[in-house]
């Protein structure tokens, strides 16, 4: 199972990150992990904090709102919103691919680009509506 560090690595390695040409599918695959990790840590911490603040009453919630509407808080919230939609759309792509569909090069690439565009559009829609910004 685990590689023994005392034995030299003489076995051939599969082609790795350095020789691959970047494409949307590769970007989306890596983003799926990164957004998943961000949502698992910062996203869930925020969810727990939010619920605790609601349970804590008006004063507790006021301090949550203060932090959330601080410029840094807003950047984190917008970032997590994007991470949520990117992970969601990319997750749907993975479920489709798990069924064996969507592996043709053009389809696969188009689907990957769609998740990138979709997450940006949905994030924009949510925050335009949340902040009451009239475009």
């Amino acid at each position, binding site marked *: *199972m685990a590689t023994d560090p005392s034995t030299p690595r003489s076995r051939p390695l599969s082609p790795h990150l350095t020789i691959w040409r970047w494409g949307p599918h590769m970007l989306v695959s890596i983003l799926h992990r990164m957004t998943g*990790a961000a949502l698992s840590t910062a996203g869930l*911490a925020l969810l727990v904090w939010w619920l605790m603040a609601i349970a804590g009453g008006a004063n507790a919630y006021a301090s949550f709102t203060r932090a959330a509407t601080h410029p840094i808080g807003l950047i984190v919230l917008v970032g997590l919103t994007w991470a949520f939609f990117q992970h969601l759309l990319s997750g749907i792509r993975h*479920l489709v691919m798990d069924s064996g569909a969507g592996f043709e090069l053009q389809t696969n690439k188009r689907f990957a680009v769609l998740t990138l565009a979709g997450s940006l559009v949905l994030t924009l829609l949510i925050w335009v509506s949340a902040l009451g910004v009239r475009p």
Partner: protein
Amino acid sequence: MSRGDSASALGKVEGLGSAGHGGGHWLSERVTSAALLLLGAWLIASLFFLPSLDQRTLAEWLAAPSGAVPMALLVVTAFIHALDGMKVVVDDYVHDEGNRFALNTLLLFSAIGGAALALFAIGRIAFGGAA
């Protein structure tokens, strides 16, 4: 872990892969993801249609069964899904068996602790008259 000398086809593949097991974990990730699609849509729609997002409105929303139950399901499902996903990341990138075990244990404790905290908060809103 791998039992390569076993006679059956299942015995040949059991215990392989970086985690030492796989099928159930893989399926759990997919099933929770499908549940989170529904629960995530519920959360976004709920927040969108609430008249305001002040503490009183949110507490009233989460005190009703129609708010507390889906939120509790969302919390539990999200923590299981997060634990499944983070375990794959740890299993892929942490090669030392001791460190991997320690990190996976830390992840497990954090996920259970976080979920318990969130469920306590929902319970307090629903049963404690926090609204």
